[in-house]
């Protein structure tokens, strides 16, 4: 059985169920308390769990993200909410030098079972300092797990897995998806890390799409299907660990790959996927791997500029057509 929930509701359900089951779990972040979080994820949780477990912090990102680590290495299971992923930059020492490395540096003597929830993506012209998609920063930091869910069901299932994981997880939620609804299974379930979801089967080209780009890729796949072009759309769901085998298998079948990501082009998650696929699927590729990413610019404020910078369905369609030139379907 399932119900329709928004992403925000699905995340809240995961948080509440886990917090009821494990008293060591607590949440801290800005405006998460009585206000319920600026994207409503913790709405009502202050009333149920109280201010000790749903804790408003001062605007002290390095402080409370680091405090999450301190609590985690002594048996707590903290969840730190960073509001905008852009603010992770303020807490970067704790994330990169401390949280990611604690377990490794200690020779396994400590572990860091914590989750840092943050938002990614452009929404409503919040401009250069509130619109970034910085998940590549975390993928580039050994020791961090990175989740990038695209559906309410995956939000719930992956967040539960993140909370029960004994390693630090950076959980990247797209701002434009908070109030988008989807079917969410009833009851307690976990979505495993490192298992991609093949959203649509196809034989002409593979599209690996990240977070909200999954929706754009599915729309393009629908459109092209009417012309007989069949895209296989894969949502990796977690970047670390990445389900490489599913991606390789798909590309070996289709012979073509486009990676679509809202992170900017250079040094991106898409670059990493393109690189690995180019090596592992070299003999099967019928065209160079294409990347559809944000431009290598900060995110501009003005709507026509923002729209230009962010990867759109048209951009994906163009990329797909460019690698299908001369193909049997085209």
């Amino acid at each position: 059985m399932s119900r329709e929930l928004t992403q925000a509701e699905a995340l809240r359900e995961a948080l509440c169920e886990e917090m009821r089951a494990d008293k060591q779990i607590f949440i801290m972040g800005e405006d998460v308390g009585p206000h319920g979080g600026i994207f409503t994820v913790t709405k009502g949780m202050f009333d149920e769990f109280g201010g000790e477990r749903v804790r408003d912090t001062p605007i002290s990102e390095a402080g409370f993200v680091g405090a999450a680590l301190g609590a985690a290495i002594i048996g707590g299971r903290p969840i730190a909410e960073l509001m905008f992923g852009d603010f992770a930059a303020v807490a970067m020492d704790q994330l990169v030098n401390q949280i990611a490395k604690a377990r490794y540096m200690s020779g396994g003597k400590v572990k860091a079972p914590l989750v840092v929830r943050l938002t990614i993506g452009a929404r409503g012209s919040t401009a250069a300092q509130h619109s970034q998609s910085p998940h590549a920063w975390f993928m580039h930091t050994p020791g961090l797990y990175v989740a990038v869910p695209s559906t309410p069901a995956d939000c719930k299932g992956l967040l539960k897995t993140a909370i029960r994981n004994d390693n630090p997880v950076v959980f990247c939620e797209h701002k434009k998806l908070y109030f988008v609804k989807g079917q969410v299974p009833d009851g307690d379930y976990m979505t495993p890390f490192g298992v991609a979801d093949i959203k649509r089967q196809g034989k002409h080209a593979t599209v690996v799409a990240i977070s909200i780009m999954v929706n754009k890729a599915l729309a393009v796949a629908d459109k092209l299907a009417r012309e007989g072009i069949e895209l296989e759309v894969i949502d990796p769901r977690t970047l670390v660990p990445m389900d490489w085998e599913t991606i390789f298998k798909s590309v070996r079948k289709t012979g073509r790959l486009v990676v679509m990501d809202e992170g900017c082009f250079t040094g991106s998650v898409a670059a990493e996927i393109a690189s690995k696929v180019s090596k592992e699927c070299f003999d099967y590729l019928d065209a160079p791997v294409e990347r559809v990413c944000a431009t290598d610019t900060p995110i501009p404020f003005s709507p026509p500029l923002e729209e230009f910078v962010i990867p759109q369905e048209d951009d994906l369609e163009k990329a797909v057509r460019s690698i299908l030139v001369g193909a049997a379907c085209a």
Partner: protein
Amino acid sequence: MNREMKIGLLETMLKIRKAELQLAVMFKNGKIPSGAHLYEGEEAIAAGVCANLRTDDQITSTHRGHGHCIAKGMEPRRMMAEVCAKSTGCCSGKGGTMHMFDPSIGVMGTIGIVGGGMPIATGLGLAAKLQGTDRVAVSFFGDGASNNGAFHESLNMASLWKLPVIYVCENNQFATSVSVKRSTPIEDISVRAIGYGMSGVTVDGNKVDETYAAAADAVARARRGDGPTLIECKTYRIRGHFEGDDAIYRSKEEVQAARERDPIEYWKNVLLGDGTISEQDFIDLNEKIEQLIAQAAQFADESSYPTPEDALKLCGGNPSLLVK
């Protein structure tokens, strides 16, 4: 303060107020693509502080920075066009409401990251000193920002190096939904200056004569080479955190009480009382500024958006990789 200066303060506050209220209307009418953090009720801080500054003195500001830009001399139409995302805005529509710059008048960035402007202002002060000028820098920031590491690191360096920087904390009682009482375990944020061996003072941020006097002291100290000052201005954020925030986390009575301490009413009454202006003078001034802001709004509204490809201009790095 001479007559001209007194009227100047009133004029600046009215400009800011009317620009912000106009932006609130434009927001409602869908003319602003983002949210907007408005400064209504806090005008006496920007006006009083900036009245002490020369054009070559510099400021950094925050997400709530429209008022600082105007007080530092930005034409309202440039500010408003930027907020409306137009190519005629002070940053050609790239920066927006939270990120405004105009170095020609010393606006060195209103910054969307809380606390982010404070180290920058510290560096502006450092440069002024190294360059052998008597320029000063002012950092405007909120009560919320005073709990960020950037605040503490900035104050310590500025005091250690005797930098010509004035840190102006706008304690408007809230950081988004969180009352300062729930974020900060002290009554007066200005006492934090003691820990860094620098001057600190708390003033009524709704009284422009108080903010002016405190800033006059601090600017003189900075220009003499005697180092930084922390000025805490107590005020109240009348509106929601941003337009569209209904601010249900506080009582209507509390907001109403704050409205009654309106900084413009206060200063207008002082000037009427001491004979600086007549009722008619006020009406005339009010009308003049209303017109200025109406024209600015029209300019913002009628200006065009930048063209999409403008997004690729002005970015460092490797332009060959600016795909699209």
